[in-house]
């Protein structure tokens, strides 16, 4: 089981991956879907221990990769992006070296290498130098390096990129066969591939996870409207009245009239409930013959585009601008607070001064009053 908890990877100010969380159970084949630069390889590199996350923890098979890297790495077979191989080794030597690196005991090594070469179909080229192989074979060699020693977890980074269609199918079949008794995490930006191989999809975009679900659920969530394509033999020309009779229909448009006078319509509904039954029943009542009726399925592609397109696209420049503006705003706020404090202090000083002056004034007045009193007394005394 792989658990990724609150993992963030930062390069300077740039977030390659931001606070991601997901879990992959034993025996699952999980697809990691995202555009180029979405953070797929970064996440995979963190799970395999090639790079360290800035924050968060990764637990593989019960071991934290930070505390027990050796135990974690022993469970993982990793096929990195771009299939790096040692050019000066033969296929067999390369797979043996990988087996040695993976600490497979000497006694089991020969058998493990043989098995890995057999299951990737490399027997014929096992004594060729890896640099002399075609792209498809190189990919297989890389895969053999990943599966040697039968690790419980396979992590495959873009395993079919750059292959011809036949090779893609072969590699895909290979992955499917491993998926029967391994946990597989496979990254790709090719949706049909994920759809065919994986039971669960993790969609990642701009370093954040936007969805974790089965391909079917993602597809279902992609559209709110259901679209039906229907071809009818409508002699009485009454098909278009269906719109008034079936309230669920929001749009009914004639697409094409065929040579045999049959007509092709497109029907849109706002609800997700299937109205095909109602349509057939109504058509039967109206003596309309349905020649074909097909429900348009939303593809994983639609789901993906919907998930990813809803998110604002910020370029790095824009992000920097936003950060800059935020900083400016903060500085302004500080300045404002400082000014306010200064004004308050000034006001307080002014008040203090005014108070003192008032005091002085009062004292002066009191003095004057006293003086006057004394003068009055003196005058009175003089008079007396």
């Amino acid at each position, binding site marked *: 089981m792989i658990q990724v908890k609150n993992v963030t990877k930062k390069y300077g100010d740039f977030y390659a991956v931001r606070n991601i969380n997901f879990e992959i159970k034993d025996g699952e084949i999980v697809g990691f879907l995202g555009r180029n630069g979405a953070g797929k390889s970064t996440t995979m590199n963190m799970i395999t221990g090639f790079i360290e996350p800035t924050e968060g923890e990764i637990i593989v098979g019960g071991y934290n990769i930070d505390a027990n890297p050796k135990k974690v790495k022993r469970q993982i077979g990793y096929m*990195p992006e771009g299939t*790096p191989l040692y050019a000066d080794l033969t296929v067999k030597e390369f797979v043996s070296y990988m087996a*040695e690196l993976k600490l497979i005991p000497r006694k089991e090594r020969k058998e493990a290498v043989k098995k890995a070469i057999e299951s990737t179909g490399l027997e014929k080229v096992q004594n060729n130098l890896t640099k002399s192989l075609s792209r498809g074979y190189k990919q297989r060699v890389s895969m053999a390096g990943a599966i040697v020693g039968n690790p419980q977890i396979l992590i495959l980074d873009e395993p079919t990129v750059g292959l011809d269609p036949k090779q893609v199918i072969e590699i895909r079949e290979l992955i499917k066969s491993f998926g029967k008794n391994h946990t597989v995490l496979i990254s790709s930006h090719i949706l049909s591939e994920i759809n065919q191989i994986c039971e669960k999809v993790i969609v990642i975009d701009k370093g954040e996870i936007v969805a974790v679900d089965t391909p079917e659920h993602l597809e279902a969530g992609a559209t709110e409207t259901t679209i039906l394509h229907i071809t009818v033999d409508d002699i009485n020309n009454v098909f278009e009245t269906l719109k008034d009779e079936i309230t669920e229909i929001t749009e009914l448009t004639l697409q094409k009239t065929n040579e045999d006078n049959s007509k092709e319509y497109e029907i849109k509904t706002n609800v997700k409930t299937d109205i095909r039954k109602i349509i057939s029943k109504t058509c039967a009542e109206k003596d309309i013959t349905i020649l074909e009726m097909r429900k348009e399925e939303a593809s994983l592609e639609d789901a993906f585009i919907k998930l990813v397109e809803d998110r604002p696209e910020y370029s790095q420049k824009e992000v920097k601008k936003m950060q800059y503006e935020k900083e400016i705003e903060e500085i302004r706020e500080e300045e404002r607070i400082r000014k306010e404090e200064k004004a308050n202090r000034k006001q307080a000083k002014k008040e203090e001064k005014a108070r003192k002056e008032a005091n002085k004034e009062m004292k002066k007045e009191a003095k004057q009053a006293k003086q006057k009193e004394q003068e009055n007394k003196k005058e009175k005394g003089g008079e007396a």
Partner: protein
Amino acid sequence: MFAVMKKEFKSYLLTPIGYIFIGLFLLMFSIFFYLSVFSSRVVNFEYLFYNGATILTFVTPVLTMRMFAEERRNGTEQLLLTSPRSITSVVLGKFFAAAIIMLITEAFTLMYYAILRYFGKPSILVAGTTLLGFFLLSLAYISFGMFASSITENQIVASVLTIGVFIAMWFLPDFNQIFSIFSLIYKFDNFPNGLINISEIVTFVSFTILFILLTIIILQRRKSIK
């Protein structure tokens, strides 16, 4: 460690690198041998290694420049660092593979000893101290070359850096004697005289260990900044 060492050693011999290193070193060594025979008419096996140290300054990068720079450029670094092997064992494996090539090269220089033995009586003990000193010097050079290779993915940069630092260490004492502590080639001076000085051995060994450790630290650090 042995898995990496075995593979690296094999790589040296499967690619021209190992042969180029051994060949280049012996070719230049032979030229110096030839020149001293014909110019001064006096040949001393031990003193040939002063020239040997000069040659080593320039040819060490042939052996070391690809160590990590090539792995990084080809992406095979990912295979190494995601394997359960520790970084220390990977670094030591590569270091010892280069050290073995160096040992083989040094073994070849014994043929000059054999030639001289035929004509005279060179001291076997002094030859021994020279070879020991030369081997320690080459280990120190390899460790620095390996370190230079670990900080870049460009092999040319790694080799230029290696040669540049070696030359600086060589000539800096001419400006001020203080720098002679850093000068490995000066530390080697006493070995061909049959003197084994503990402080010199300690310098070579600690320099070697320092740069092996620095290489390990660089690779470990890169995990968090990569």
